[in-house]
């Protein structure tokens, strides 16, 4: 505990004493040790549209205030997604090019496309996450949540990430894909292999990452072939294989969609499930409120999505020169919208660093993004969080976090690798 506090103090000193131009908020080490906050605090105050000239990611702009983020997110004509939506290290870009050749514009999943390519492809999968289908899915998610929770040990330490967060989200994602259920944890593994740099998470080397990607793409090519030769069914792969907007995709574009749906479909919800338990333990008075009034679960879920911000940023590329917050962004510049910072913008959210499960407007957060790329699966995420907590409060008076979590080494995926907990007793 002392170490963590000490390093945050150190970070505070560094963040406020470094020359502004040296501030590189994408440094993944600071996300992993949870010391990123003072850097964003300073940028919001002193340089809300900030340029980092030299970093492992090359040069990039950081947009850190709510209103500026909104201005970028809703202006897809200037701020393009077609060259990718993650701020990647130059090393990662070079390694990926070595393996798969140069990246084409508009060739990833639909999140990495601009209009007119984006809309029809996005709409191919939206029926799966529309209200009618969510209503159909809910009882199944509830049953699975119950089975997971009933199998947890009592009075014994275990890893919440592995036993609950990953398990529930892998089950849901397997259903959305109609992926072989017994292999569901491969989805989680592939997701971690996609998002982690070598030396972090399960990824040992670039070659190791390539092998995992090949295995994943092989499995999904098999699913495509299965679905394309069968009658259309109500899962995302069948929809992609049969929809006029996507059935003629080349394999690379299909792979882009697979990566998008795997990461978007499990990482984010997984890390918010872990984040909810962590936050409720960090702020026990909030946990007490929830226990006393389970009707607060819905707003607790939204507050956790804000507080956690499971994807710390989205990146855009300027298609032309543009003035933002008095700064001249040039055509071709990379522009990072730091949702994690906008969600702590005191000019928009009262007492933003506090975790308050009964906030007045808990849905006011940037975590799903805004504009045409707004998270397509936001309601599936909320549904899983809502249900797991409804089932938790039915079963357990308390779940105790018994040590600090280990955090993901990433300035994109803001999550947890492990979270040690003990459940003292059943209700």
């Amino acid at each position: 505990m002392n170490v963590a506090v000490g390093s945050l103090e150190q970070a505070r000193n560094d963040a406020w004493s470094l020359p502004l131009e040296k501030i590189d908020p994408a440094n993944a080490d600071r996300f992993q040790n949870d010391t990123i906050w003072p850097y964003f605090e300073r940028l919001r105050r002193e340089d809300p549209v900030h340029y980092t000239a030299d970093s492992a990611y090359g040069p990039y702009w950081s947009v850190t205030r709510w209103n500026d983020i909104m201005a970028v997110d809703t202006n897809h004509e200037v701020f393009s997604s077609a060259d990718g939506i993650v701020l990647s290290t130059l090393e990662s870009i070079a390694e990926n090019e070595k393996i798969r050749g140069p990246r084409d514009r508009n060739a990833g999943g639909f999140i990495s496309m601009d209009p007119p390519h984006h809309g029809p492809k996005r709409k191919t999968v939206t029926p799966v996450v529309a209200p009618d289908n969510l209503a159909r899915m809910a009882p199944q998610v509830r049953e699975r949540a119950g089975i997971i929770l009933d199998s947890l040990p009592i009075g014994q330490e275990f890893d919440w990430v592995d036993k609950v967060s990953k398990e529930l989200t892998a089950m849901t994602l397997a259903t959305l894909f109609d992926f072989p259920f017994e292999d569901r944890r491969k989805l989680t593994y592939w997701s971690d292999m996609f998002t982690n740099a070598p030396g972090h998470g399960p990824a040992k080397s670039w070659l190791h990452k390539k092998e995992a990607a090949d295995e994943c793409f092989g499995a999904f090519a098999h699913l495509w072939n299965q679905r394309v030769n069968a009658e259309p069914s109500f899962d995302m792969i069948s929809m992609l294989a049969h929809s006029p907007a996507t059935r003629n995709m080349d394999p690379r574009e299909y792979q882009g969609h697979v990566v998008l749906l795997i990461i978007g479909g499990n990482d984010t919800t997984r890390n918010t499930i872990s984040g909810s338990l962590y936050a409720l333990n960090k702020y026990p008075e909030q946990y007490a409120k929830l226990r006393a009034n389970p009707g607060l679960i819905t707003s607790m879920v939204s507050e956790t999505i804000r507080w956690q911000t499971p994807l710390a940023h989205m990146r855009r590329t300027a298609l032309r020169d543009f003035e933002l917050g008095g700064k001249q962004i040039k055509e071709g510049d990379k522009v990072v919208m730091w949702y994690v910072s906008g969600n702590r913008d005191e000019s928009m959210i009262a007492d933003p660093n506090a975790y308050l499960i009964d906030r007045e407007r808990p849905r006011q957060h940037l975590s799903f993004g805004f504009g045409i790329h707004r998270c397509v699966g936001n309601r599936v995420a909320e549904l899983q969080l809502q249900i797991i907590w409804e089932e938790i409060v039915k079963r357990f008076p308390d779940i105790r976090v018994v040590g600090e979590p280990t955090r993901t080494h990433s300035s994109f995926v803001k999550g947890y690798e492990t979270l040690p907990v003990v459940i003292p007793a059943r209700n």
Partner: protein
Amino acid sequence: MQHHDSQDDGIRTVILRCEQSEPRRMPKVTYIEHNGKEHTVDVPEGWSVMEGAVKNLIPGIDADCGGACACATCHVFVDAKFEAKIPPKSDMEETMLDFAPEIQPNSRLSCQIKVTPELDGLVVRMPQSQH
């Protein structure tokens, strides 16, 4: 139909009243939840139809983006009689609605509808849920 007729009468009465005397009363907006529950409230001119719901704590409109036409969680179906009285959709509203479920020809984002005296008596219905 009875309902609509009486509303027509209501509008005529309001117009007469507005012409004849001050002070003008605030336009009324009726919000009908997906389950059929109706809420009729006075909404000050210049507010959006979304604000009229949120500030009166009427359920069924989330308005996550706070009125920036950037999320489609304030989706409503506008009563046919009022469709022509509301300015047409911007490209952004069109695009955001295009990605929302349950879209009908009379779908609008209520943050983009400014309340005016002409909209007095406006009736909007809510979808099953906001996405």
